[in-house]
């Protein structure tokens, strides 16, 4: 186990820069999730950490050692690939023991460690099978077993769950988190799925177009997104955004599209008439007499909650209610955002305006 420091790392392919100076401190034993849309550079960063890609500039250190020019095998890391990259011609046991075999470990030692990893992952009955004879979830576990056997300083996961079906993905998510709690190995996990990020991470790093948009604990990112990108990326269904202006006439309010009045707790200083984007999460709407008028378009009950699509000031918004209201399409209701939970962003830069 050890900490990882990524300092001002840049990566260019030819003249095309894909990472524009990324700095991420990772503490010993932390579970860090790099999350972002496709092409944001998260996988490239992970591959640079593994040593599969060169670092154009900046430094990456594992423990106290700068590893920019250290061979992958000497970095003491283990990686789980998206397609698992299991050796098809080796049994589960051989797959897991391969790295030890290359290090000339004795066969007793290999057997012992493979057996231990197999027990942790409930793979013991499958040790003599070939990858082709395994289900998706079992292959995923073998890939993790291959990493565990090496007992590395850092685990790297590259979208390990994206090839699994939805149900299995949820189960494996828990399994990986449990494994981390047990082994406490520093882990860097790449995904494009914000739910995976929220549920598993000690620290989330949201990346977009080769820069870090924000990093913090899952709840920090949910409660106080630094900018409109993070606000829209974290949370499901996504946050609603309404364009308009801040008004300060004794009471701070937000004038949304078509003059719709929305509540604000406090206005940012010297901001009367300032153009801004009003953000409110679907779960932060309530039905109240002093709410904004809305017309219901579609109602989607999921059992535990109901998603309601409605028009506010001509713009479509989503609201989620845990209570069972009787809504019908075409109904007029009054939706009120909780003023203490709304977010205000600068219209031009997308930066957060309210505290």
């Amino acid at each position: 186990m050890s900490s990882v420091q990524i300092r001002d790392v840049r990566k260019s392919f030819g003249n095309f820069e894909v990472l524009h100076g990324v700095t991420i401190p990772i503490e010993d034993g932390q579970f860090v999730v790099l999350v972002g849309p496709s092409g944001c550079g998260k996988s490239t960063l992970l591959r640079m950490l593994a040593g599969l890609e060169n670092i154009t500039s900046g430094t990456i250190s594992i423990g106290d050692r700068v590893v920019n020019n250290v061979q992958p095998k000497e970095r003491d890391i283990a990686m789980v690939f998206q397609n698992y990259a299991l050796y098809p011609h080796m049994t589960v046991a051989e797959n897991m023991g391969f790295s030890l075999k290359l290090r000339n470990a004795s066969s007793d030692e290999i057997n012992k460690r493979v057996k231990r990893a197999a027990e942790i992952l409930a793979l013991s009955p499958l040790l003599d099978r070939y990858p082709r004879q395994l289900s998706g979830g079992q292959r995923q576990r073998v890939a993790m077993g291959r990493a565990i056997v090496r007992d590395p300083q850092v685990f790297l996961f590259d979208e390990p769950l994206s090839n699994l079906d939805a149900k299995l993905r949820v189960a494996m998510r828990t399994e990986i988190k449990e494994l981390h709690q047990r082994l406490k190995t520093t882990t860097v996990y790449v995904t494009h799925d914000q739910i995976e990020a929220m549920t598993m991470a000690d620290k989330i790093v949201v990346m977009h177009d080769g820069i870090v948009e924000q990093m913090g604990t899952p709840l920090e990112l949910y409660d106080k997104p630094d900018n409109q990108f993070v606000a829209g990326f974290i949370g499901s269904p996504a946050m609603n955004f309404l364009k308009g202006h801040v008004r300060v006439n004794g009471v701070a309010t937000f004038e949304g599209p078509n003059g719709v009045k929305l509540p604000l707790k406090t206005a940012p200083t010297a901001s009367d008439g300032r153009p801004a984007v009003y953000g409110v999460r679907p779960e932060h709407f309530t039905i109240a007499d002093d709410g904004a008028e809305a017309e219901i378009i579609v109602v989607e009950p999921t059992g535990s909650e109901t998603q309601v699509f409605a028009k506010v000031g001509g713009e479509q918004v989503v609201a989620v209610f845990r209570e069972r209201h009787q809504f019908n399409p075409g109904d007029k209701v009054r939706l009120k955002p909780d003023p203490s939970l709304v977010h205000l962003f600068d219209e031009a830069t997308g930066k957060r305006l309210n505290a």
Partner: protein
Amino acid sequence: MADVAIPRAKPQMSEASAWTQLKHNRNWLGFWFMVPAMAFLIFFLAYPLGLGIWLSFTDTRIGRVGHFIGTENYEWLWDDSIFWLSVFNTLLYTFVASALKFAVGLYLALLLNEHMPFKAMLRAMVLIPFIVPTVLSALAFWWIFDSQFSIISWSLKHLGLISQNINFLGDTTWARICVIFANIWRGVPFVAITLLAGLQTVSPSLYEAATLDGATRWQNFRYITYPLLTPIIAVVMTFSVLFTFTDFQLIWAMTRGGPVNATHLMATLSYQRAIIAGQLGEGAAISSAMIPFLLAAIMVSWFGLQRRKWQQGESND
């Protein structure tokens, strides 16, 4: 299957004639779809093979109908030292040429699988020996190895390494080396391109995983590339051995089996006895004697292929 696919005729339809019933029979229809392919195989493969084997048991000559003489041709060949020499030549030729074709082909395939400038052009160039008609390349080699005008002898003489021409195709050892070299030159592209195709099916992430597991370049080859390539190696080497074993054109154009039968393969000896000398029965017997060898080669690769358990196994997803 037909019973399932066709509902039984209902009582009121039982008057349909046998012909109508036959017209609607899927097996009958299927048979007619098969006929062209079957006819092709029977006339061009099964019939010549059967005829060849039958001829080997007769004393047929060109222009004279033969009579069945049992195994007399084979008994005669058993005591024929030239026949045994051709068997030895064929085995030597096949073994040495195939082994070297495999080595060179694999090396080229690995080389062409790397990233390098002009990759597409280099890959196309490797195919050239394969495209040139055999007889044409054989004639070119004939000149290259000519006893008087050989460019090799000429070059070595001018470099001062030898004082007189090497009698490439006149010396028994040199002649064997030359025909084997020509065969390798022709056969390498097939092996190289097929193995290259095999190499490209290996997922790059396996190499990345192996690199992270601590494998050196050699270990990458030894533990990942080679085992994953074995199925395609088995197929390509089976074909290569079959083609080499039955080679005729190259030898006939370069040496006609000489000098003193040193490069006579079974195929060329068979042609010489059957067509040139007119002894069809004896020639057929020499050809038929190749069958056990070819079957053995196929069996080896068949069982080699079957052993790979990791390729089979049902997939559960």
